């Protein structure tokens, strides 16, 4: 292990924090105008139990939303990838749906399912993140070279068999590429609901109440906590990718 690989990014972060701290100090900004890095840790300690409680709410709803997006997106991608007609029928619908800014969907969903906060949040996370998964699975299946199919079909193998033995594993690298995008989107979806619709759950809510009180140290502390959670989620997907599609990573194995 090369020590520079760790030291260089750490030094960069330290430098950035020092510049930030220095800027706030030099401009003499008070806490209600701008937070400095030295304010963040006290802000976290003050609300520590809330960070863990709300953090857990944000985390589990993101993960469940993403898991449902995987199931729904994969199913949709399979239908589109295996049937030309379904692809032609569904693709424009999908693009159109994806083009709707999800911030406008949040109030609609909130009105439709009043009071079902967990359900709303998961639904938005699902709606915002299934698109890349569906597209990658559809393209992966649709572009399978005919020879791959023929080696099994010529032995009388069923379509399902061809799918399990060849098409599915072959699309795993694309699938994980999409999943890395989807996990970030699902996370955005969860936070969007937590911030826009006031239902008192998740880190988004903590952020929202900090904003109402102009509590900049708390807002920034929440931002950092969200960033940390986003990084953990992303690398969880990377770890899964190494297990299930490690063969596609050059130099690995």
């Amino acid at each position, binding site marked *: 292990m090369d020590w520079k690989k760790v030291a260089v990014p750490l030094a960069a972060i330290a430098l950035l924090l020092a510049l930030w701290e220095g800027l706030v100090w030099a401009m003499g900004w008070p806490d209600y105008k701008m937070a400095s890095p030295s304010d963040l840790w006290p802000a976290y300690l003050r609300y520590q139990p809330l960070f863990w409680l709300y953090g857990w709410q944000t985390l589990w709803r993101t993960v469940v939303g993403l898991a449902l997006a995987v199931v729904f997106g994969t199913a949709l991608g399979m239908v589109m990838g295996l049937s030309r007609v379904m692809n032609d029928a569904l693709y424009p619908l999908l693009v159109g749906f994806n083009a709707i800014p999800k911030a406008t969907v949040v109030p609609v969903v909130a009105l439709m399912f009043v009071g079902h906060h967990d359900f709303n949040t998961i639904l938005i996370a699902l709606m915002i993140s299934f698109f890349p998964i569906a597209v990658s699975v559809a393209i992966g299946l649709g572009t399978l070279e005919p020879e791959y199919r023929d080696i099994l*079909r010529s032995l009388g193998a069923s379509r399902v068999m061809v799918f399990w033995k060849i098409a599915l594993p072959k699309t795993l690298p694309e699938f994980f590429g999409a999943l890395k995008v989807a996990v970030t989107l699902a996370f955005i979806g969860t936070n969007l609901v937590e911030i826009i619709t006031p239902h008192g759950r998740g880190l988004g809510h903590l952020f929202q109440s900090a904003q109402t009180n102009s509590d900049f140290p708390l807002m920034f502390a929440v931002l950092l906590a969200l960033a940390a959670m986003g990084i953990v989620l992303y690398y969880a997907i990377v770890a899964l990718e190494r297990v299930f599609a490690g063969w*596609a990573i050059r130099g690995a194995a």
Partner: protein
Amino acid sequence: MGNLIEIRGVSHAYRTKSGPLPVLKNLNIDIPEGSFCAVVGPSGCGKSTLTRLIAGLMIPDAGEVWLHGERVTSPRKTVGMAFQNPVLLEWRTILDNVLLPLEIVAPTMPRSQKEARARELLAMVGLDGFETRRPSELSGGMRQRASLCRALVHRPDVLILDEPFGALDAFTREDLWQTMHQLRAREPFTALLITHDLRESVYLGDQVVVLSGRPATTQSVMTIDLPGPRPLDMLYQPEQVARLAQLRHEIQIAQGREVA
């Protein structure tokens, strides 16, 4: 010995946006059991279509394909295929790639028995020691050898080869020709080889069928009665050189560049 494959008056057309595209027209080929049939013809004349019809992946519009005295109307487990693209599965080891057909054809066969069979074939083509490698770690020629093992692992009656050596360099290709003869001496199969290489067709074929341009019909059949394994320098004997010249002439006609 009788014919293992009989192609009787086969015609086929693809339905395309600009109307039907006739690809094969009244094609007739007989392939005796255990023999090696090489098929040459202009690019795009319908050679790959012919392989798909024999494999039962498609049914001809007219005419019949007979295999072992049974009419082919669907895929059957007694066929092995290899293509120009070796289409190995990157997430499997070489051994597991070769085992793939057995997972379909003989799901109940004990793993040890399947493995023994695959290892025997890999050794025959000189890939012993590469069983646990991934396809990406092998050269093009080695991948094609693995692909041949996969085509043979379930002991098919018919081996269908669609330009399997087409993407290899000349020396690797000649190595694989010799491997083909060695495999023939030890494995009982009837082969249909599509090729662009006239030398390949003469070196490997017991008969060379020349197809005309699209829509393809049987233009000529050349019989090469030389029991195998053939030495590579046979290609430089006057008799074979004359055959090559003859085939060259036939191809020119098939391409419509010369009148018969």
